[in-house]
């Protein structure tokens, strides 16, 4: 899945993609990389996507960074929570790559 998203993003040509294979890696990576937008899964082995959103929104450095949560289960409760925490969008799999691309264009411009 991550591969698919990465290739979807790379296909947009405006993006340079850095990957983290779990939440901890993302937390390590954030201070080192200048990130314009974050795409995260809701379920990760260590921390969950909601927690990552919460972490970023409470940190002045990433407060304004656009965030997209991706989820397999269409849990309405998770969606509401994610948006309430400050995620900019909540995408439920399966979605079309074009949807993600369109969303990113909207969030970056």
């Amino acid at each position: 899945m991550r591969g698919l998203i990465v290739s979807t993003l790379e296909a947009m040509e405006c993006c340079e993609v850095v990957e983290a294979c779990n939440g901890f890696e993302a937390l390590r990576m954030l201070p080192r990389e200048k990130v314009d937008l974050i795409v995260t899964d809701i379920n990760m082995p260590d921390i969950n996507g909601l927690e990552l959103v919460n972490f970023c929104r409470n940190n002045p450095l990433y407060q304004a960074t656009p965030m997209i949560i991706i989820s397999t289960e269409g849990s309405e409760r998770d969606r509401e929570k994610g948006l309430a925490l400050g995620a900019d969008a909540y995408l439920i799999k399966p979605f079309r790559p074009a949807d993600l691309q369109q969303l990113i264009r909207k969030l970056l411009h």
Partner: protein
Amino acid sequence: MGSRQQVDEFLAEAEELLEKLSQDLAELGEGIENGDVNPELVNGIFRDAHSMKGLAGMFGFDDIAELAHHLEDLLDKLRLGKISLNRILLDLLFETIEGVGLLVRGKAGDPDYTINVAPYVQRIGDLLAGPDDNSAITLEALNLDVALLNVLTEYEEHRLQENLTQGRLLLLVSVAFPLDSFDTDLSDVIGELKHVGEVVSTLPGAANADPSSLAFRILFACKIPLENLSATPGLSDCCFETVSPAPPVSVSVPAPVLAGVSKGLTQAEQPLPQEAPLQQTGEDTSLRSVSHSVRVDIGKLDILMNLVGELGLVKGGIAQVASDLSNSGVAQACDLEKSVHSLERRLAELQKAVMDVRMVPVRQLFDKMGRIIRRMAQELGKKVELKTFGSETEFDKLIAEELADPLMHIIRNALDHGIESGTERLAAGKAEVGCIELRATQRGNHVVLEIADDGKGIDSEVLRRKGIERGLVDSDTQISRRNLFGLLFHPGFSTRDEVSEYSGRGVGMDVVKNNISALSGIIDIDSTYGQGTQISLTLPITLAIIKALVVRIQGRDYAIPLTSVLETLLLEPGMIQTIEGQEVVELRRSTLPLLRLNQLFNLDGQTSSGGDFVVVAGFAGRRIGIVVEELRGQQDVVIKSLGKSLSFVKGIAGAADLGNQKTVLVLDVSSLITDLLRGDTGLNV
């Protein structure tokens, strides 16, 4: 509902699922008793109920499918914690499974057997209609930051809830680590915690004074007292905060269960005895399985087969000793030889018996194809009739499995590109309903499968033109019919450009051919334009153990499967002629192309000067002569594949042990034939 065999197939699988479901439910019951239910177990039961639904649906048993559907629904809610697990629910699960079992066993006697599933469905509905859990209330009542609750996913909330119900001690563990090593440090702490409880969630702390470190809070449900936990060596850096204390032991487990019972009683238990009696299982119902078959992993049969093969080698060794003793005049040698003979006979019987276990009737495969044809014909809006012949022909289970996909591709092509629509057929003067024939026949140690359709066929002229365009055929040479249709097996070769109405979704025949070759089989295709296409597959009955002719080429031994050896000739000087650069000999007025393996495999040493033998090998009407130095004898061998990393090697089917600590390569005659007759010498060795 379909044939007896289909019912049997269904029964075997359904009974297995039922058995697993009952076992898992029993384990779930124990879990409730001990107050410790494994969420993975519930997930597993849910998946099995789902499989049961799918299985019943596939075989058209709507009653079972409906019941399984409601069961799945119930389990899904349980899995997500939308209903709570208690005795009432467990009983309901058991009863529903019992109902499914009743149906399954009933169908064993009569496929049309059914019972009224409405009472079961109603009971499930009643339970689901009961008041929702009080989850939201208890979680908010906890001594927990609302901000923390807000970042829990629905599943994590459920786990938190569940741990509270179990009466576990709930802790918030705080810990901070340097930024450059926090992931490993934190994993260590979490690993430590998991030994003694469940980590519900890990939350990265946002605001921290020290930018070089990262703080975390871990929501942890603990099974041991806090004093013991804080004394754990690996957790010395942690700071613990109690969110909800464990209640006194005496009420911890029964309390939630009792609550469920009293609630459940009014909702589910009461209306049932009067209004909706469940089907009585009755005293006379037998507990014996209705299916007499045992399902065994094919790997176990392979092991058995290998053992038989190796026993054969041991026997060969003993026979050798016996004959040596006999030659040197030892008195008991004769008795020993007798015993060896009787061992040999028993061994042959054993081998046949093991082989028989592996054999399945081709009918299983045909039935699968029948289902595909019906479904596809419906989708494509075509009318097709399936005729099968020789469905009791048997072959190795492994081959049957491996054959399913290629056969499906062939049939899809036939339906999609071969059979025309009803109106087209009428216009062409054919019967409106198309026909696909599947025919299986045994020929010696081979099974021939023929797939014939009476569709529009393939235009050989188009094929020829396309072959010339692609440079596969010389425009001025005559090409045989077999080679012409053989073009279809070229990777990327397609007739789709010329014939626009071909939907072009055809699966590459080259893939099909590779699959068949991997089974040491041969595929042939023939077609009459306007009348239909015939494809025939020639396959060995088994791959497990074969008789082989051991030959010597350039000082090395090779085994040739005896099933493909037709005869052997003594090669006399002057017999060899050369036609278009190809060495041939004339054999009873036909030309036999010769293959020299030392050239093909680039073996060192000079080409032998003649005075050799020719092994005439072939099947499905194609023959080649393999030049060898010496015929060493016949032997039973167990072929072992060369493994994935050497799968590119062509011309070799595998390796075999000859018993005298010598390993030989087994030639793959089918690929040698195909490549030689196509004039392709580019073998990778």
